[in-house]
């Protein structure tokens, strides 16, 4: 390990950028913001390059006892690493998406974004329970301001809803954290992950954490803040919301709920499955009837997040790995879709699906990228979406074939609403003259789309790059869960081998 406190530096760089942005004018602010996020991206790549795959569970650890009651303790495992890399990868793209779109109070806007980046990295790196909570909650303030100041028509309602929903979810978690720290006598997350809380208490603790993570995730039926927030947030806000903020809920489940309360997780798994099944079907159907492109993608996010939760609560390696890949993939794909919406929104200033049509004729390159991300959202093999959804559903099939059956309909419904959206926006006749006059992607938009498309394909074709760093951590989590994992409904029995002579026949029999 190098002596460089790289995780603290990754949090410091955007913070300094934020302070610098506050006083800067529009042009300077966006340059500073881009520079700060690119510095963080480079640091993130260094982090990935120096991460010792298969090495110690917690790497790059830092610990300074500067506070009373909790400490500045940072450190990452493979799971956190990938989410951090996702964050620092999306941030420069967000700045790019805001390049021309943000006219008023640009300095404050970029400052809010950079603060968000600091806090998100803080959430994924915190090794102290209370440090995590502070980072987790602090994100509310910049996001509230981003939605409220730079959002659309109904921004104030959306910002309140976002703030109060997530706050109510989180405060109960804080009380649960106090109880845990009081019981275990430590605030250190790795220690708490191995601590066996009394099973009876786990139920309450799980519910308190669930209240918070379910809202952040968001799970049906507490998802209603998400479509409002998404529709009203500026493009970059939506990208960050879908790309990273939603991952905080999933990260919370995988880091806290599952390892700290394995018995309670098993006990509540049917509840999570039920909510997820409902989410997949209901929100997909809602997405099918939307007139607003951003709302449609927002509902599709809820459906995808439900695939994450069923994977997490499948209690096996495939499910957990699948959830992680769905989270990463959804971060890229939903981010890219919001970006694509932003591209046409910047030109026509409407999100009404009916106002577009036939864009394939005047914007062929846009149509190409939009198609790729649509397919990735559907889960076409070869794109990142397939890998994650396949693994998640495979995992849950082991646990419950009924859940798998219902959730797989989500894939079909997903194809339905996404293709229907694509047909209405990109294909068909050019019924609107102003939409037909829109120019194709410019250089800035190319620069944002290409990296996203490349990574989506990379993750689809060779997911091993992303699975390798977290394999050991997922295995550790799986081992921790083994004590509590509910029995699957598909109880396979290995039959006695038939006495046959041919080698070929034996291999054939095993496959059944």
């Amino acid at each position, binding site marked *: 390990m190098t002596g460089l406190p790289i995780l603290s530096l990754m949090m410091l760089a955007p913070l300094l950028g934020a302070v610098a942005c506050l006083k800067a004018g529009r042009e300077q602010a966006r340059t500073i913001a881009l520079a700060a996020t690119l510095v963080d991206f480079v640091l993130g790549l260094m982090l990935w390059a120096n991460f010792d795959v298969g090495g110690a569970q917690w790497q790059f650890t830092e610990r300074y006892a*500067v506070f*009373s009651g909790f400490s500045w303790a940072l450190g990452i495992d493979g799971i956190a690493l990938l989410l951090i890399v996702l964050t620092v990868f999306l941030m420069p793209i967000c700045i790019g998406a805001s390049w021309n779109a943000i006219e008023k109070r640009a300095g404050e806007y970029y400052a809010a974004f950079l603060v968000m980046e600091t806090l998100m990295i803080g959430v994924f790196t915190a090794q102290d329970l209370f440090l995590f909570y*502070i*980072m987790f909650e602090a994100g509310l303030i910049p996001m509230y301001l981003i939605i409220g100041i730079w959002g659309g028509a109904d921004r104030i309602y959306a910002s309140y809803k976002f*703030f*109060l929903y997530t706050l109510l979810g989180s405060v109960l978690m804080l*009380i649960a954290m106090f109880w845990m720290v*009081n019981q275990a006598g430590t605030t250190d997350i790795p220690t708490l992950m191995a601590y066996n809380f009394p099973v009876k208490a786990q139920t309450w603790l799980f519910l308190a954490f669930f209240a918070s993570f379910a809202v952040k995730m968001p799970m049906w039926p507490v998802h209603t803040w998400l479509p409002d927030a998404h529709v009203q947030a500026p493009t970059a806000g939506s990208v960050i919301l879908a790309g990273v903020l939603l991952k905080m809920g999933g990260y919370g489940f995988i880091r806290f709920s599952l390892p700290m309360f394995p018995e309670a997780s098993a006990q509540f798994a049917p509840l999570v499955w039920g909510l997820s099944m409902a989410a997949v079907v209901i929100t997909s159907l809602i997405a099918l009837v939307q007139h607003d492109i951003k709302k449609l993608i927002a509902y599709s996010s809820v459906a995808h997040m439900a695939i994450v939760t069923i994977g997490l609560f499948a209690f096996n390696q495939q499910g957990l790995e699948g959830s992680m890949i769905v989270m990463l993939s959804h971060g890229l794909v939903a981010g890219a879709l919001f970006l694509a919406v932003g591209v046409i929104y910047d030109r026509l200033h409407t999100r009404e699906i009916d106002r577009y049509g036939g864009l394939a004729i005047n914007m062929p390159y846009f149509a190409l990228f939009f198609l790729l991300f649509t397919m990735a959202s559907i889960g076409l093999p070869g794109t990142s979406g397939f890998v994650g959804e396949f693994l998640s559903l495979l995992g849950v099939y082991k646990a419950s074939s009924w859940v798998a059956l219902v959730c797989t309909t989500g894939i079909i419904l997903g194809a339905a609403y996404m293709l229907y959206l694509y047909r209405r926006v990109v294909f068909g006749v050019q019924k609107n003259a102003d939409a037909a006059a829109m120019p194709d992607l410019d250089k800035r938009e190319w620069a944002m789309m290409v990296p996203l498309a490349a990574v989506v394909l990379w993750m689809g074709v060779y997911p091993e790059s992303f699975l390798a760093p977290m394999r050991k951590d997922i295995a550790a989590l799986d081992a921790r869960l083994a004590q509590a994992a509910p029995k699957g409904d598909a109880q396979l029995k290995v039959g006695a081998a038939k006495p046959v002579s041919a080698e070929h026949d034996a291999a054939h029999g095993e496959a059944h």
Partner: protein
Amino acid sequence: MELVRSLHLVAAEELLSVAGLILLLVAAWGGDKAARAISIASVGVLTVCALLAAPALCSGATGPDTLAFGGQYKADAFSAFAKLLIYAGAAVTLIVAPAFFDRFKAMRAEFPLLVLFASLGMGMMVSASDLLTLYLGLELNSLASYVLAAFLRSDDRSAESGLKYFVLGSLASGILLYGVSLTYGFTGHTSFAGIRAALGAGPMSVGATFGVVFILAGLAFKISAAPFHMWTPDVYEGAPTPVTTFFATAPKAAALALLMRISLEAFGAQPQAWQQIVIFASLLSIVIGALGAIGQDNIKRLMAYSSINNVGFMLIGLACATQNGAAAMLIYLAIYVAMSVAGFVAILMLRDENGDPVESIADLGGLSKTRPGLAAALAAVMFSLAGIPPLFGFWGKFVVFQAAVQANLVALAAIGIAASVIGAFYYLKVVKVMYFDEAVDKVRGKSDAAHVVLLAVASLFISPLGYLLTNWLHALAGNAAAALFHVA
């Protein structure tokens, strides 16, 4: 020798009395022209008093060495902690007052003197270890406060607030005095140690229980805890803003410290006699403070409800009846004083182009465009009062709720923290008006340099940088709470 030792222990109070009397003479001969000089001198006196009180806190003074005048007075670490907050609140009031009163040509020489005498009374309140000392200190503070509330003689609202405060305050004093007499009657002691010993002997008599109830009711009025909170919005709104700053900081700290001392020391042997009352007052204050604030359109009234709300959170620390709870309450109190100072100084800076105060929340519309620094400070105060991390106000809630969970009051903590979300709504409203609404551009007045400096210092304290002070604050509050729980 005993007398010399006692006089040495009460050095801060002696200095305040003597300096107050001398400055009174200066005021009598110098007239209102000397007001500014007297204010400056008073701030100097308060600073020296703070320096006199500080050693006891840092060394964690406790035990019989801190008792003066035959056990009527206690100069321990706990009283020192409270005194530092009181002197800070009083000094801030004196610094912000001239710029405000000059506008009305009402800066009189009596103002700093009243603040000094009120501080003297509050110092006695927090150091009291006898019911009589307690009452003397309380009344000295109250009488000065009534006059301060009505200080803008020509203003109807100020006169009204002074009168309301006086009538309701006298009623509360009466209730308190009745409780004191019952307690004395049923325990035979006025000293806290004697009461503790008498109550600890066995089951509590009905009369003594009534005494406890009446004393707590009287003090609940002073700390503006529900259901004795009704005077707060009117007085906060009507009193001149510097005086409101004073009420929200120094007397609040003094009355809360007094409540802690009497509950944990005098009635400390029978916590179950008052825990329920405190829990009830705490939850009711949180809810009433939060719900009452929602409909307010005057920012000073809003801060009044916010103070009721915050007192509720502090009482959770008291309800624990543990040393951790007391320390948590003191930490919250210190942070609350800083938040109030920042909030009210920011409100003082809200002035239109004629220099008249702007108090309506709607007039703050779009403040972030016209006065970004001021808006950011006020927004920080609001988020901090709401207890949203990473602002320092969160730390206060953090320690209080942690203490409650450690004391096995999980249900109280859960209800309290869930109710804090209601409070977040109205704090957000202020931020929304300042940041999301169109610019009204009413706030155009120039700010006094002293205000800017005070606001900057207080804002830095409640900013995330405040967390760097947690170790230090924790140690000091720990000293103070240990002194409180040191039963001779």
